[in-house]
């Protein structure tokens, strides 16, 4: 299968060279794969996800995503808008917007009419099982439902890659299970998923699990 993500000797340091978050990471992800990256807090999982998604530039090394060398891309915003769907532990939905309006947020960067945005948001909320909560604002929804909105939001630009950071960290086990089922379904539909977690039960749903420690990937 095509390698959709390829990272070579990734190094990322902060505060000069005093904090080494990534210390020579090599990673290859094939198109349609569902991988999990496990490791303790502070091992560099989230930083790796940020570098892979173009939120952060590596200090050194190479990172290719869907054939694009991220170190050479000038407009990373538009790259993220077209290629990547991000899901975070803290979803940061806008509390005054309804579920449907929150899902539309990434679509402002696409040339869609207001009506098209509405239709697409409805479709995505149906996909995550929230068709009956479209007009609810986040404070009126449970943690699991909010995370589903965040997933629908991440899917709104039809990204081929989903980068997921501790998606069930704030959820009870039943909600967490529902969320992971959605990721499995999305993976079956052909999306590549890179999931970062420290929860072994969640990681086991992935086809490959990587372990990270001190900024390095130790084993597969």
């Amino acid at each position, binding site marked *: 299968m095509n390698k959709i993500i390829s990272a070579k000797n990734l190094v990322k340091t902060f505060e000069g060279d005093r904090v080494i978050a990534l210390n020579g990471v090599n990673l290859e992800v094939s198109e349609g794969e569902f991988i999990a990256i496990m490791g303790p807090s502070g091992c560099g999982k989230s*930083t790796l996800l*940020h570098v892979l*998604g173009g*939120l*952060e530039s590596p200090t050194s090394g190479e990172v290719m995503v869907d054939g694009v060398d991220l170190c050479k891309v000038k407009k990373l*915003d*538009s790259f*993220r*808008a*077209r290629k*990547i*769907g*991000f899901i*975070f532990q*803290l*979803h*940061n939905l*806008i*509390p*005054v*917007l309804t579920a*449907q*309006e929150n899902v*539309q*947020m*990434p679509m*402002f*960067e696409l040339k869609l009419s*207001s009506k098209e*945005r*509405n239709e697409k948001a409805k479709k995505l909320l149906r996909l995550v099982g929230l068709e009956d909560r479209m007009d609810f604002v986040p404070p009126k929804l449970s943690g699991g439902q909010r995370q589903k909105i965040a997933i629908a*939001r*991440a899917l709104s*630009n039809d990204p081929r890659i989903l980068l997921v950071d501790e998606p069930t960290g704030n959820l009870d086990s039943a909600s967490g299970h529902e969320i992971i089922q959605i990721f499995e379904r999305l993976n079956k539909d052909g999306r590549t998923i890179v999931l970062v977690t420290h929860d072994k039960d969640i990681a086991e749903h992935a086809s490959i699990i990587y372990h990270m420690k001190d900024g390095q990937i130790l084993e597969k």
Partner: protein
Amino acid sequence: MRFSTLIFKNILRRKTRSAFTVLGISIGIATIIALGAVMNGMTVSMEGMLKSGKADFSVAQSGISDLSFSRVSENRTNEILELDGVKNTAAALIGFYSVGDNPYVITWGVEKEDFPMLSINIINGSAFSQEHELLIGAVASKEWNKTVGDKLVLKELEFNITGIFESGSIYQDKGVILSLKKLQEIQNQEGYVTIIYVELEEEANIEEVCQRVEEEFPDLVTIKSVAELGKVDKGLELMDAATLAISFLAVIIGGIGVTNTIMMSVYERTREMGVLRAIGWTKKRILIMILGESILLCLFSVLIGSLLGFLGTELLMLQPIIGGLLEPLYTVDTFVRAFVVAFAVGLIGGMYPAYRASKLSPSEALRYE
């Protein structure tokens, strides 16, 4: 959902904070509206005094700071009439006296032969023919509920109302007219007038005649238009300067208030900004959103401030001491000025927070706690 809806909903997140910010700016806007309306009213009133009827220009004492201080020899009326190009002249003495509850009623001392030139039309009754007779303006007649045949006490003297007049100037129509001689006697100003109105021959050049008047009579100054009001009245210039200063202060104080409000909002939403950047929003879109919130807050302030300004001015006008003397005039210019000030406050106040928000590194914003 439209992008504008998002901006609107964002400012409703902290309703109390937004409301207080809007209120703060609204007070500045209200002041601009009120001062503007009062100043416009004063300008029109002054214009009514300076450009009466068929007069092409008026003449007052030079070097004065307020028209009511003008003291011109009555003889100048005939001397100016003898100049080339002058068709007619009319003199008026102006005073302010209390009538009933109204402490400042403009009182004109004019000869009735000058009524046609000053476009004073008697719509009811007739002109005064004796000392203790006077005319009242149509507006004054309604406000005081007085008509022909009624009595009016002016400076402890009782006058018979013989007629009601209209001049087309609300300032005049709120006042009374009595004979020049009688008003000179009341004011102890025999032989003096406040202002002389000059009507020119058709072919006369107004600039040349004005120049000649000022050359022949150095103690006099000519006023051709409202733009020259400053020659005889510094009050309006001062008020205009005050309005500008208040507008400037409103921009600074309002701008600081808006900056503070929007900056707090940006800090509170730092992680959210990080998520928006992560999902593909450009720096420009973040900038527009934050600037939009700032400008929208200020546009709400224009609406509320205009309403407050209008209500405040009307409340002030209920006071006889102010309402009797002034008629506020709400012009489009005043509201445009308020709008421009509010827009500037929104733009300047929102610029820094918007810049900060747009410059946030998405990764750092996501780590922000």
